[in-house]
């Protein structure tokens, strides 16, 4: 009996064995391909990270070493200095700290103002019935595609006429206006998602539009507002074109990006400056981005998939 046992199952269930072999082959194939896939994903991740990482290390290396050896040699002969940062931030020739302040002063109103205006407009488009509403909304939506290049010279001419050129006011105003079409569209999408009953119930209670807007809708829209706020924050902080046009090189108005672009042009070989300067300009958006990534992704999805 014992001798026949190993042979007996084979003719009885040939299909099963083949199945099992097949399954095992499939499994090896899939582990192999998973490994290949993970390897490939890892490769992309590394390629995407290394350039930033290299410049980060460079920003902490002494000038003399940056010039004579690659940043990868830092791992075998590490030396760290904060000299580069001290010099770009406070050195009288660069004063990035001044431009850092300018970036903040430019960005905050340029986020607050368009969001407020867009919220009000989006409310009207979503919850007030009026003639021509749809046409007007489509028109605003379509204006998203106007490249801001088209607007710069006439706006600049107007600002010069008013004597406002190269002040914070023109930068705030321009950023606020340029943000409106996208902001209205996005916030309108979010606002439409709020259940009609909530608004109707408030109306029955005799609340006017202003009250409904502040008491009913605004609290529910906080995540949507956060989504657009981070979007606009990154956009304004990282903008070069608007700032270059309306603030010019003005040390008292121009943001970090303008100064950094200027340094890249005039001191293109001074990597200790450029590296530290780049990270001074990057630290705020990266922190904001990492802290609020969830909202940012939401905003992206609402903006492009629905649109």
């Amino acid at each position, binding site marked *: 009996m014992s001798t026949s046992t190993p042979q007996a199952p084979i003719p009885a269930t040939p299909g099963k064995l083949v199945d099992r072999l097949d399954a095992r082959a499939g499994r090896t194939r*899939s582990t192999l391909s998973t490994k290949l896939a993970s390897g490939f*994903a890892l490769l992309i991740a590394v390629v*995407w990270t290394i350039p930033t990482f290299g410049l980060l290390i460079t920003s902490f290396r002494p000038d003399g070493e940056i010039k004579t050896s690659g940043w990868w040699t830092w791992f075998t002969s590490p030396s760290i200095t904060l000299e580069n940062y001290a010099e770009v931030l406070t050195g009288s020739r660069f004063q990035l700290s001044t431009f850092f302040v300018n970036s903040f002063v430019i960005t905050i109103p340029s986020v607050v103002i368009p969001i407020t205006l867009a919220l009000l407009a989006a409310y009207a488009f979503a919850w007030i*019935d009026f003639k021509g509403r749809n046409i007007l909304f489509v028109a*605003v939506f379509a204006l998203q595609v106007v490249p801001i290049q*088209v607007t710069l010279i006439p706006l600049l001419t107007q600002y010069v006429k008013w004597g406002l050129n190269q002040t914070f006011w023109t930068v705030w105003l321009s950023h606020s206006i340029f943000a409106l079409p996208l902001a209205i569209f996005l916030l309108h999408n979010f606002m439409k998602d709020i259940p009609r009953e909530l608004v109707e119930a408030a109306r029955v209670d005799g609340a006017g539009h202003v009250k409904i*807007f502040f008491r009913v809708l605004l609290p529910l829209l906080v995540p949507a507002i956060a989504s657009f706020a981070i979007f606009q924050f990154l956009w304004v902080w990282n903008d070069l074109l608007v700032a270059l046009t309306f603030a010019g090189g003005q040390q008292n108005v121009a943001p970090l990006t303008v100064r950094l672009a200027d340094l890249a042009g005039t001191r293109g070989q001074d990597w200790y400056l450029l590296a530290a300067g780049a990270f001074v300009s990057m630290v705020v958006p990266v922190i904001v*981005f990492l802290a609020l990534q969830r909202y940012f992704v939401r905003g992206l*999805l609402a903006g492009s998939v629905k649109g």
Partner: protein
Amino acid sequence: MDLLYADTTGGKFLLMFIAIAIFVLVMGAILVIVERIPRAPRWVVVAAFTGPALLGISFGLIYPAIITTRSSFYDARGQNFIGIDNYVTAFTRPEFQQVLLNTVAWTVIVPLASTAIGLIYAVLVDRARFEKLAKTLLFMPMAISLVGASIIWKFVYEYRPVLEGVAPDRQPAQIGLLNQILVWMGLEPVQFLLNGPWNNIFLMVVMIWIQAGFAMTILSAAIKAISTETIEAARLDGVNGIQQFWYVTVPSVRPALVVVLTTIAMGTLKVFDIVRTMTGGNYGTQVVANEFYTQSFRQQNQGMGAALAVLLFAFVVPLIIYNVRQMKKSEEVR
């Protein structure tokens, strides 16, 4: 205290608060007045809510766009009507043709490359163990300014000249990673940003590096929305990973692919920061968006600048039409 200028940190922040306060007061006043009017006619309410935004849009987008279109038919100083001469120049002069050609290359290559990378990466890390971290890594460049990104990549491309008649081991060290890799492989270092036409590709890499994260985010959401039944059915049919990618994943996320491609194309069209920071538009790398800036603000050629801005706008239109058509199509399918 001057309400126009501030030159100290405290002064600037004060100015900022004053600006916000003025804004809040004006908007608050408008809303309070509307709320106080008993039985306010609807148009008053609508005007209060949409008026400020529409006024801003009219002043800052519509009116300037009309003026710019008009001045694109005028000469450099905006005084004499010259018909379509600026456009003729843009399409016939060799140096402008090069600019147009580069721009077309950017708007084709950047969206395709970043979408491909974003899609592959989204598939690879989908439901992987470190999905969130992996996504953040690809996503991170989106937080960085184009100027910052350009500096990061300029350093990767950094070139140290090879000295003639000097032994290989005594050559000056390459400090750019890419050239060092070439040297390690026994090759000569290359001036990545100087030698055309390839330098255009090396500039595009920066934009691809930034946009791949955007593509990945949108496509990853689309991939997660594919129903499990579809995937199971494909598995039962015995398709392997690559077949599943081509026959299940790609068709399912097609609408998202179109949106991503066109969105990136539109963004790429308008980018000037990268070219400006890395090559200044020299060595045959100029694009329309940067040439616009050069013509308008450096050459003081208002007419030409305006014509280039209008061209940028004109290039966007077919992209939009395509986008809307695809959207309608996918809605019909549903």
